[in-house]
């Protein structure tokens, strides 16, 4: 099996100006800090964008509003995309973006609960977000509360046993208020997920753990909106939306290139090149 043999190919999905603009913001943050998981953030942009533009209920002026939907970015290294959206929605001033990873900033290389308005859990070490999200969902179920819980996990992260412990538990409790969104870009730090630790048959795994599952193109805004606005996918089950994505989406030389998983020492020339690709 190769990456190109998957039935859904997100490689040629076009990006609109808002998606390009969000990516330019991410590049500028990386430029300020001279580091960042840029490729991991680029695969996430449309997922997070659709969540915050269309799906989630929240009040950015009151981030702890009890009735809000909870969204945990369990693959915390994708935080650049989350920060760009949270600033865009007014959770904190845009100036914070330019202090990414700086000692006087609130935005670190992984998101922190209690420090960044809108961040529901501190993540970074992988495999923690889903168990916490299951706790959120159980609490809402106990309280018969209407809010929903979304947990975004990575494909590399899905190597962690705690993900599957939590998945079993979510299935058992029929947590219809819980949706796992998998950023399936098929590229982990070292190499392709197919080489490092093959997850296939991935959708089948989630189904057998008790989830309703859909597979979509994670850069296709309409597909994301369509699926995420019709949750749960199946009655009496938590949902898993497997988003086929491209790591580094938007810049051909970054796409699927492991050198861009976590990039440090980004040169001015590279920045300008990236911005040029992104219509800047």
């Amino acid at each position, binding site marked *: 099996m190769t990456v190109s043999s998957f039935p859904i190919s997100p490689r040629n999905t076009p990006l609109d100006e808002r998606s390009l603009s969000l990516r330019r913001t991410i590049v500028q943050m990386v430029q300020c800090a001279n580091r960042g998981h840029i490729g991991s953030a680029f695969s996430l942009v449309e997922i997070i964008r659709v969540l915050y533009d269309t799906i989630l209920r929240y009040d950015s002026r009151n981030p702890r509003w009890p009735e809000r939907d909870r969204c945990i970015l369990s693959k915390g290294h994708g935080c650049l995309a989350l920060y760009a959206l949270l600033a865009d929605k007014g959770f904190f001033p845009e100036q914070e973006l330019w202090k990414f990873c700086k000692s006087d900033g609130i935005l670190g290389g992984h998101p922190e*609960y209690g420090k960044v308005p809108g961040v*529901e*859990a501190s993540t970074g*070490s992988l495999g923690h977000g889903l*168990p916490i999200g*299951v*706790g959120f969902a159980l609490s809402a179920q106990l309280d018969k509360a209407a809010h929903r819980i979304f947990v975004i996990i990575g494909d590399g992260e899905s190597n962690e046993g705690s993900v599957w412990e939590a998945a079993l*538990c979510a299935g058992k409790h029929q947590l219809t208020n819980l949706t796992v969104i998998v950023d399936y870009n098929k590229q982990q730090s070292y190499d392709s997920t197919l080489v490092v630790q093959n997850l296939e048959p991935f959708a089948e795994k989630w189904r057998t753990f008790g989830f309703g599952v859909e597979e979509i193109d994670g850069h296709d805004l309409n597909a994301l909106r369509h699926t995420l606005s019709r949750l749960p996918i199946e009655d009496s089950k938590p949902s898993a939306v497997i988003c086929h994505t491209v790591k580094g989406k938007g810049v051909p030389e970054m796409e699927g290139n492991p050198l861009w998983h976590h990039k440090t020492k980004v040169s001015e020339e590279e920045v300008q090149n990236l911005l040029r690709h992104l219509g800047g």
Partner: protein
Amino acid sequence: MIVRQTSLNMVYELAKQDERVVFIGSELVAGTLKKFKQDMPDRFFMEGVSEANIVGLAAGLALEGKIPYVNTIATFFARRAYEQIVLDMCLHKAKVRLMASGGGLVYAPLGPTHLAIEDISVLRTIPNLTIVAPCDADEMRRLMLLTLDYPGPIYIRLAKGGDPIISRSDPPFQIGKAILLREGSDALVIATGICSKLAMDAATELASQGLEASVLHVHTIKPLDTAAIDQGIQRVPVIVSIEENVTIGGLGGAVAEIIAEASLDRPKRFARIGIPDVFPHQYGSQASLMEAFQITTQNLVDKVMKLSTQSYRSTPESLRK
């Protein structure tokens, strides 16, 4: 009444009076908290052998305002779910209560995989965590009553149970406040958990031999009552710690840190009693393993006697400035 049963009964009582209380078990003995499950089924969770998930979801529940009491074998918390304790519970200051069964050598017959010999040492390094090791069932009851409103995460180290009652209702039990069970000016024994009973027995024995020992019961390992320990060590020439945990980094290690940093005008004679730096490979009972590691009243008496009569070492001329 055994300690574990007392703590579980208390969870039931607390859950009856406070709807925020939930109980989570991993894979406990059939029938555990049967009445809880009958009376409050929606707040009773038995989630199987998945400690990482259980601690994480407990943190999630706590962040949403619930007060989860989580029960499994101590070492499955401390070893298996260590990162979840650090990150999900403590980093988030989540109000989770870990009820750690079989702290120390309780599961002696089950071998080294089931013994919690270093939980105090490793968990003591985690910011925001409170660690309590009550000495008997009465003290467990007093502790549990305080856990509803106490902020932040707590690790409760449960002894085997059936242990003799030595705790008293006066002074009132406070988390973080050590209790001076006995006063004497010749030596200070600092103990935690069921070892405080050994310390009291040793003090009685020492008195019969003409030595008066203080006994400081440090039920809360963290936050450590450094003021009480600092005060205690200044009054006596000899100090011995005793615990059912490895001596490296445990209560004895914590006391050593305080002594070393106290800038005392005269050196103290100090010894730590606990589990040595080995994996226990012997079965038998908790008592027989404690005997094998000399976590005993007799060893405590001997150590205090020896240190009391031992002369100070003099620094060799070659090492003097």
